[in-house]
């Protein structure tokens, strides 16, 4: 084998693997996980904010930081869930015009 490596083989190999790849079809949507986790965290931290003692508020420079952070996380979580609802994952398009080699 020569020292030079032909890119033709490599590109064909990757193109072929792309047609067999199942990630696009089977991988879940991360927006669901981010949304879910931040809604749960948001609820937990917001509740901690409602139950905050004076000591805790004094420690945080007079800010009820749990309440603010909790609400912020809740909003972010809901944003991701709404986004997912409005623009669901598009079904994968079969690669039609890939450069040769496919059936």
């Amino acid at each position: 084998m020569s020292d030079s490596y032909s890119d033709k083989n490599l590109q064909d190999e990757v193109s072929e693997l792309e047609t067999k790849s199942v990630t696009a079809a089977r991988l879940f949507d991360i927006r669901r996980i981010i949304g879910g986790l931040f809604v749960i965290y948001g609820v937990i931290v917001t509740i901690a904010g409602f139950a905050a003692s004076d000591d805790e508020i004094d420690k945080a420079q007079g800010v009820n930081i749990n309440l603010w952070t909790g609400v912020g996380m809740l909003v972010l979580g809901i944003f991701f869930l709404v986004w997912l609802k409005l623009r669901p994952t598009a079904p994968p398009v079969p690669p039609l015009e890939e450069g040769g080699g496919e059936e």
Partner: protein
Amino acid sequence: MQTPTSSTYLAAELRLPTNWLDYTILGIYFLVVLGIGFAARRSVKTSLDFFLSGRSLPAWVTGLAFVAANLGATEILGMAANSAQYGVYTTHWYWIGAIPAMVFLGLVMMPFYYGSKVRSVPEFLLLRFDKASHLLSSALFAVAAILIAGVNLYALAIVVEALLGWPEWVAIVVAGFFVLAYITLGGLSSAIYNEVLQFFVILAGLIPITVLGLKKVGGWDGLSDSLSKSHGSDFMTAWGGTGIGSENPLGANWLTIVLGLGFVLSFGYWTTNFAEVQRALSAKNLSAAQRTPLIAAFPKIFIVFVVMIPGLVAAVLVPKIGTPGSDLQYNDAIPYLMQQLLPNGVLGIAVTGLLAAFMAGMAANISSFNTVFTTDIWQKYVVKDREDGYYVRFGRLITVIGVLASIGTAFLASSFSNIMSYLQTLFSFFNVPMFVVFIIGMFWKRASMKSGFWGLIAGTTAAMVNYFVIYKQGIIDIPSDQGANFVSAIAGFVAGAVVMVAVSLFTAPKPATELQGLVYGTTSPGMAEPPAKGDDAWYRKPALLGWGAVVLAAACYIPFSF
């Protein structure tokens, strides 16, 4: 970008007042991490699924993963430390030391990377140059990735011991196990998904620290007045005191900042470090791959505020921080503010974010290591031409071995931490000549097959000689390690370029037919594909995103320049 301060010794008094609420938050996170691994498992069928997510992810996901892979905890703690020590100079690591390089990667280099269908950065060298440069860069990358993963794990163990009181070995084994589990199960998809999640969690922890820290020192004005009094007015500016020949704590002038950090070091890191580039290669089409580093650039511009401000606040609250007279090191800035300011609840979020950032930093290295080791070393030189399923199984096996090796490295680092920081410096010099070889290879057709290998060797050697001989032996007087780093990078760049040109003139060029899609001015079939539906929207145009990021970063300098 590699962290400027390497040691992570935290004072024992930093124990956080965590309670059941914080541990509940942390526990939920660990469950979700494992859940992502199990859920991503069914999406792995081919080796392309395992190593590159089947080249199918949307740009916002790969973009956030791109920035998160760099937002490891050593980076967060290190940049806060840098700010406590050097002040607003820290912004250079972001605005000039990252944005231009990320934009260059997206606009100029990505068509060649993604269009040529390579699965890794070394594989591009194989196509453009020869096997010698390919094997050299693959092997060095594999070793460096394990080393950095191990150093990351060790840094995590020290922080967790100080903050939560867990013994070091428990933290190393627990974090190692979770990373091993989710990458072995779901491959790159699960690494990327966890990085996206980590990105949001770490910000949810850092923003409250920044806001409360500012409130404590009387807002930005209070912070600025106080530090200008104690550290001089240059401390609060980006460029003050960087004239050539003038003294500043960074030990660098505007020329070495712009050329050394802004051009050579940062382009070397952002455009050829496979742990980053891999995220873009997993995008679903060329447009998404180009937009990956560009989407990442926007959060990167603003992340500096949530790491720099806590560092500056710590410098006000603990005036002696980092000096022998204080128990607190520069690296303790963020943990100290967590302890002082955060009540239970948000504290749990911040702890979770920090642990998540450590694990993501390690996972980025492991998931790029297994790809390079399997596709570039094993599949090309050791066991060739087996069926695809074999390489998926081997990829999983090498992930386990890689994690075990980095756990071993972490234990080694706990007894030989000086050697480790020395080795890290050593490997950091390899990125610079990589960039020279790429840039010349991509823009100059005549660059010969052999010139890649010799450019790599010459550049690395020159950078190392400059750092370890000329600087460390005191032949030239450079005031700080950082300043010396910048100068060494420039030396490595120049030496690599000169040797490449010289070797090219005396050796055979690569036949033009084999350079299609690898050199500027040529295209490969994959690059000609028309934009997918929706990608022609104006806000998805790579050029607009890229130049927008550059202009925004430049504008950010204005308030800090006068």
